[in-house]
């Protein structure tokens, strides 16, 4: 799931201070899953922002609308009837959705209301941990299903480094497991520790953002 979190409220208040009527656009997909931009969060943020701007002395009217996905043109289209009635859009979608709205409605300012931060798994209610970095060169088959790119701060391919704490956590964050410790543990449990002795070559990063803005084309699916 793409994970995002609200931008700091003071930052949003500053951005919106010059406006009188905006559309707060939610998305019922990833950002709803991580409780940042779904309908529930739209219904929370709208009164919150109105209160905040009232306190600042800049009363703001907020029109709310949550669409299925802001990364789909047909759903973005649903906003077309509202756009002429507002001065700006505050979108709670991830960066993809914000851009889709901005591209479809280039005549209006579209602000992001969230910071998109990672691709994560919801381990438990209220806890999401990043699991994927979209590196374009997946090695999960060789690391026993544990990603060293996303879950190691140094993205080590031949870890662990010397920074594993006694309790198996990473020296950088006591809440984060040293993923290489987990990989070693899992390998040992399966009796396949030897597979970790193979030296893994430097990664090819070019199949992801490092190779340039990514573009995927499938001729068989083109209209």
């Amino acid at each position, binding site marked *: 799931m793409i994970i995002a979190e609200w931008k700091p409220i003071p930052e949003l208040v500053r951005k919106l201070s010059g406006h009188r009527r905006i559309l707060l656009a939610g998305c019922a997909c990833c950002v709803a899953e991580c409780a940042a931009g779904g309908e529930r969060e739209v219904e929370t943020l709208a009164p919150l922002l109105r209160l905040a701007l009232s306190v600042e002395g800049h009363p703001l009217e907020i029109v709310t609308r949550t669409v299925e996905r802001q990364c789909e043109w047909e759903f973005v289209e649903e906003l077309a009837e509202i756009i002429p009635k507002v001065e700006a859009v505050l979108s709670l979608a991830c960066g993809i959705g914000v851009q889709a709205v901005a591209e479809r409605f280039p005549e209006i300012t579209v602000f992001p209301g969230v910071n998109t931060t990672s691709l994560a798994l919801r381990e438990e209610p209220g806890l999401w941990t990043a699991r994927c970095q979209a590196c374009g060169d997946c090695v999960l088959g060789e690391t026993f299903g544990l990603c060293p790119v996303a879950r190691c701060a140094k993205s080590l391919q031949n870890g662990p480094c010397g920074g594993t*704490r006694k309790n198996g956590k990473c020296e*950088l964050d006591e809440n984060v497991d040293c993923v290489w*410790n987990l990989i070693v543990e899992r390998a040992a449990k399966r009796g396949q520790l030897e597979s970790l002795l193979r*030296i893994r070559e*430097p990664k090819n990063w070019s199949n992801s953002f490092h190779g340039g803005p990514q573009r995927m084309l499938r001729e068989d699916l083109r209209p």
Partner: protein
Amino acid sequence: MKLRAGSRLERVLAAGHFAVTVEVGPPQGPDAEVIRRKAELLRGLADAYNVTDNQTAVVRMSSIAGARLLLEAGLEPVMQMTCRDRNRIALQSDLLGASALGIKNCLCLSGDHQKASASGKLKGHPGAKNVYDVDSIQLLAILKGLRDQAVQSSGDPIEQPSPFFIGAAWTPLATPEAFRTLRLAKKIEAGADFIQTQAVFDVPRFAAAVAKARAMGLCDRVAILAGIIVPRSARMLRYLNERVPGVEVPEDLIRRMEAAPQPATEGKRIAKETIKAVRVIPGIRGVHLQAIENEAVLPEIIHSADLLPRPEVKM
């Protein structure tokens, strides 16, 4: 045995002497005199001098510049190189440059994450983008390729081989302990010629780890130098024990420092005892002393630990 780079450190080890290396921290500024002054202080005390590479991700004069300045002062440097700030292109470029400048020893590390730079009074650069294009083991292999096959990581050739005496770090007591010796084997396979370990305080546990390495035949393939940190206080020992992964300080050592009327003196005593103790561990071929902004104590320690004079070797 054919020498790989012919550095002084390599020759000392090849001749069977117990080697001494010492860490030199570059300044947080552009003043070459700082390095020169440290060189004067430490001249003759070690076989080679490590220059750190933005340790703890704090900006300091570069290790390649520090290494060159040491060379010019007549000391042999060990250039430390981390993977945090430079990709494989920059790393290889700096390695070629290092060779051109006469630097022959290189210690390959993954490097502290930039989060570590914001600590104490320092704001650091925790918001910087890191690189970690390759890791320390891949870097070892890169150096080996440049040296033995005159080839880059890509497979493209370089015009002449770039000779290095290749070093790596070892933290034998960090979790998962059982894997640490296997990872040492990996580092040797990748290209490590010498090892500098994390600081030793618990000698028996360290000796047990070295014994495992010996049993795997690793001590014949690589020269292990035991890391020594000179403690200054019980608080420092406690900090090292609790906050630095892989540093294990026995409780009675901490109590000994607490009871000492002069902790600084006691710390020097502890360092000397540790040097003496690791010297007799089979497989340990030297010591690597880290003074952590306290290089002034090193002359006394090295002298009273019976490590002087440093051997004469033909260069």
